[in-house]
């Protein structure tokens, strides 16, 4: 830890005062002192920007709110948005949620050498993750995940609600064989009751996936669904962009153009 490169927000810059000394000498000195300095002084403190949402437990988090995110949500909810715009901006919001979701994955420290011959104290994500989308609207998020992790394994679950009983039941599920050993990024953009997600998590649990190894990536959730899910699965990580009483249920229809 603590090569010169760890310039995170909280680190006091210490080198510019010496900038008049020769760069090479400075360089060597840094390398020598780097080990000593690092541990105690410059331990990288990576803190997530995500804040838990009050009332839904410690693992239910929102991506950082900004005017920008709000605009994306506005466009997605607007009934007058054209399909092309809808898909474009939905993909952007998905990408933001996916990027934040990846931050929840485990990593380990490592040191690499840069082309200038210096050491950089970086980190490496632990292998053994996979994505699982809930058919159909969850599949809209697969591309966003694949844009970040090119070769990630993807499982699928098809949950249908029975037209008569309104009960969700699993029709189809296909996962990587060793899913129980993996962290699972479960993708489902809209939660209005939460029933579909509960069914899907149940299936994952049947495949021996631990609750705490599931990260649910979601765009819009109702407070009711948030409450239900965090009650049933208190240890599951949940990431969403907005909790709002009205869920934009047209998402899948409009994204895939079947409205």
């Amino acid at each position: 830890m603590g090569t010169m490169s760890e310039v995170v927000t909280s680190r006091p810059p210490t080198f510019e005062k010496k900038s008049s000394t020769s760069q090479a000498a400075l360089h060597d000195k840094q390398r020598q002192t780097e080990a000593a300095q690092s541990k105690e002084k410059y331990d990288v403190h990576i803190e997530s920007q995500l804040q838990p949402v009050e009332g839904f437990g410690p693992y239910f988090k929102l991506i950082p709110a900004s005017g920008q995110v709000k605009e994306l949500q506005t466009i997605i909810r607007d009934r007058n948005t054209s399909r092309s715009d809808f898909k474009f901006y939905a993909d952007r919001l998905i990408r933001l949620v996916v990027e934040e979701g990846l931050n929840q994955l485990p990593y380990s420290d490592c040191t690499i050498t840069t082309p200038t011959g210096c050491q950089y104290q970086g980190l490496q994500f632990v292998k053994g993750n996979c994505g699982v989308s809930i058919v159909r609207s969850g599949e809209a998020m697969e591309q966003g995940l694949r844009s970040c992790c090119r070769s990630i394994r993807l499982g699928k679950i098809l949950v249908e609600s029975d037209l008569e009983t309104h009960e969700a039941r699993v029709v189809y599920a296909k996962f990587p064989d060793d899913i129980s050993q993996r962290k699972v990024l479960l993708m489902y953009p809209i939660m209005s009751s939460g029933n579909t997600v509960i069914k899907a998590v149940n299936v994952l649990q049947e495949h021996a996936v631990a609750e705490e190894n599931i990260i649910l990536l979601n765009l819009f959730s109702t407070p009711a669904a948030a409450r239900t899910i965090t009650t049933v699965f208190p240890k599951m990580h949940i990431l969403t962009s907005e909790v709002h009483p009205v869920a934009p249920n047209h998402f899948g229809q409009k994204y895939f153009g079947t409205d």
Partner: protein
Amino acid sequence: MSGRFKQDPPSSASSDSGGEETATRQMEDEESTTDIGEMEGSHPTSPRPPSAGPHPQTPTQGALRSPRSRRQRTTSQSQPSRSREPILRGRRRTIYTAGRPPWYDCQGQLVEPFVIGVCGGSASGKTTVARKIIEELDVPWVTLLSLDSFYKVLSEKQHEEAARNEYNFDHPDAFDFELVAKTLLRLKEGKKVEVPIYNFVTHRRETKTKTMYGANVIIFEGILAFYSPDVLKLLDMKVFVDTDSDERLVRRLQRDIAERGRELDGVLKQYFKFVKPAFDYYIAPSMVHADIIVPRGGENEVAINLIAQNVMTQLQQRGFKLREKLANANFGIARPNSLHLLPSTPQIRGLHTFIRNKDTPRDEFIFYSKRLIRLVIEHALTLLPFTQDVTVETPQGIPYEGKRIATEKICGVSILRAGETMENALCEVLKDVRIGKILIQTNLDTGEPELYYLRLPKDIKDYHIFLMDATVATGAAAIMAIRVLLDHEVTEEHISLCSLLMTEQGVHNIAYAFPKVRIVTTAVDPCVNEKFYIVPGIGNFGDRYFGTEPSDQ
């Protein structure tokens, strides 16, 4: 048609003779040889100044260009000569004529150009003097403005007179001095100017104009350079070239008859009817305004030496050696408020680990840097004002209180080459976004940044600009690019500088020079090494991304 030929010594008249001509002709200075091969070697994108590009010409450049076999001036001489030669080897040094070195000090503030006015009778050797001054000066960038460009547009009747050699091109009324003063003033402020290109065949201004910027030194030359009081006020130094009238007549005769194939009678008639009276009435009396009178024109080495020394003294107070100064500038500890560093999340550090690793294959380097770029752009977008509240109809029938972006006008400007890698990400988040480009290269000899190429949307001043460069070391290139944008009247608050990696120095230099520019980056490294690479850094981002690393590595 007297004025048409009277004031261009052979060295400058060739500047307009059409870029297609390739036959070279050794002009009076046997020292000047062109050497573009070396220049091209050091600059991946070899500068080819387009006719409307920001490439002011030095008068010396004109001297290198090939005249047509029949010398026939068709346009004014401060027109861009679509030159093939970006540099010129002088006796002692190299004069760069294509790239634009910094024209502001290390705080990003404009350095007022030094304006030299050169006046003198027709064929007195004004351009030779101007050129020798430039050679004496150790100044890399010079703009030559010629009074020729400012001839008034002729009416139908005057046009006919001109055809019969009966229009007086030597009279002050033939020039638009108001425009001269306006142009010089803007050049002095470092602003972009559109200099008219005068067509001597149609006696009209061409629809195209020549774009010029203020330089370290601006030389304004012309027979009536000291005529207008408004123009006089703008000249920092006034040089009058006083050549004996017999000698000037001889030169004119030689030039017009031998080189332009005109008749002796016509030339003499023109001389006595217009050229000589104009000299006696308007040009010679303006000598009183001169600070220095140079007898014998260009041969007068002593006078030129004195002038150059004086100019140098003035210029030395005006911050050159920009990048070195930037690298060594000392700043306080606190990070400026205009710096918006992305939160150092595991993803961002993980992406940095990939792209900083020298062993990362290009395929992965591209993929992971693209991801990082996307995050920077998204973050920069969140910093724009999104103040506009709107209520939209939803398919669920319940109105939704949302927000819309306050400005539609966002434009990306990438600093070639590494900045181009970020364009795609901008297009991915903003539909149909406009993209401008700026090419800034480091001059390998001086280590200074130089401006080579510029394409920006016309109404760029109304836009929010995302200025993109992958890495910012000393900030020299970014400061130059910001300066260019400001010269195009972009509002400083409307500029966001987006990059993947910066140095402490770069951040401070830019924030100090332009406190209102938003700086968005994913990491800040402590310093640069002696090659101006960031350490620990990423290496040469452009080379790694485009796969143009030197083969010995």
